[in-house]
């Protein structure tokens, strides 16, 4: 009697150790923690946990938005002048890039749910390319020209043609909020790179097990959400 390999998952059409069958992909056989009633419970709990973390991230950015609101109310002329020095076209391009990356990461979750491993990898790669493009535009076309011009935050400010004595406050708000956001883009990209590596090497994600894809995608969507609010506040309001 052929013994059935206990590592065979419910999804595999044939037992794991039958001849001609490769070792099942990792997503099929990953055991869930036994303190959970079912793998579904584990997934829902992970998702809720990620949502709780996202609420803390929203509060972090709310602090930055509050600083923006307060300083804007106190020094409207400085903020008007400073906002005019930003190029809204780079902001628009960055917004479009992030929206597309949000779309592809949502599609990658869908691909994991449907066991479309190849498209899962493609979508993750496109998302990471978008992240890299966002960071490149931000640093090369926005930060570096401004820094060399002297438009720097706080006491580092040295722009000779400042229109308002409080313009360094505007630049502080600009650099702080976009830099903290860029840091979150980097963190999200690292998470998604980890997902990509695991998906590419051991097929870690599939219909039964895609928690990591889901939670990393949620983090990425939050990054996009924050930028959706940052872009009009910094670039469009005058």
């Amino acid at each position, binding site marked *: 009697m052929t013994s059935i390999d206990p*590592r*065979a*998952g*419910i*999804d595999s059409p044939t037992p794991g150790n039958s001849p001609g069958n490769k070792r099942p992909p990792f997503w*099929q056989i990953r*055991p*869930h923690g036994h303190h959970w*009633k*079912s*793998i*579904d419970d584990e*997934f*829902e709990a992970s*998702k*809720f946990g990620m*949502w*709780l973390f996202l*609420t803390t991230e*929203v*509060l972090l950015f*709310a*602090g930055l*938005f*509050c600083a923006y*609101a*307060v300083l804007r*109310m*106190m*020094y*409207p002329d400085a903020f008007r002048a400073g906002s005019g020095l930003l190029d*809204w076209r780079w902001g*628009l391009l960055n*917004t*479009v890039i992030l*929206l597309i990356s*949000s*779309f592809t*990461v*949502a*599609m990658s979750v*869908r691909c994991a*749910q*449907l066991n479309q491993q190849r498209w899962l990898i493609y979508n993750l790669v496109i998302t990471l390319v978008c992240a890299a493009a966002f960071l490149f535009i931000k640093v090369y076309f926005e930060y570096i020209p401004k820094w060399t011009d002297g438009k720097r935050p706080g006491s580092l400010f040295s722009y000779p043609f400042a229109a308002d*004595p409080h313009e360094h406050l505007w630049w502080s708000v600009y650099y702080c909020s976009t830099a903290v956001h860029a840091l979150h883009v980097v963190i999200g990209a690292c998470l998604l790179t980890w997902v990509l590596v695991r998906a590419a090497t051991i097929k870690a994600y599939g*219909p*039964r097990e895609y928690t990591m894809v889901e939670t990393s*995608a*949620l983090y990425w*969507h939050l990054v*996009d*959400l924050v930028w*959706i*609010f940052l*872009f*009009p*506040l910094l670039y*469009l*309001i*005058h």
Partner: protein
Amino acid sequence: MAHQHDHADPHAHPGTGNEAHGGHHHYIIPWQKNVLVLAILLFFTFLTVALAQGEKWAQASFDIGVIPTWVNVTIVMSIAAIKGTLVAMYFMQLRYSNPLNTFAMLFCLFGVALFLGFTMLDLGNRDRVYSWRSGEIVPGGSLPTRVETTVNDDGTVQRNHISLADPMYIVARDEALNRQADDKAAHRAANGLYAFDKDVEAFNKYAEKKKKSHGTYHEDQTASTPDRTRPRHGPTPGIFDDEPAGTDAAKKDSDKDHGSDH
């Protein structure tokens, strides 16, 4: 096939959910819906940029003056809120998952509303009661200032912050004097006496006339009567003078030799 025991997941019940998707009943969003949401998001992005630029253009070409900032802010933030809601509901799948997730995020937004709302209520109304509170915050105290730029002979530029308001202790002293004047006026009105302000010009004219004609004006002036308190000179210059401190009349007042007190 339907009751294969999943050793990796011994608690999974057979027959629940969609077997083809591994026993989970998670919503799988159709890709067309994702594309539609992306299209709507991109539309709103271009709309918001177009509105912002259009507003600038309308201000420049039509003669409608300055469009108030709150119009711009409201439109732009409303569109941003719509975009954010779409991302949260469809991309983050709040619509198709446990309502507890939605509740967590809504509660967080309530917290943000409290945070921002109270801060802006405070900041926005700082100048309602005390006008000197509405100025910039500098180390050592807040005073509204005007910036005066002077160019020195050697070409260096100097920016002087000239205070537009008195320091706090002078404001407080003036308010105390005003309260004192109000009390005096109320007392006089209650007792049917003349109002102090109406009297002072007439009295000063009379005093000048008397000064020219008699030498005893000082005595008259320094003695108080039940009717009115004569000006006294004490350690705080101007506190009991008729004229406000620092004016020429007050200087003349203090220069007079007032007999008995000094």
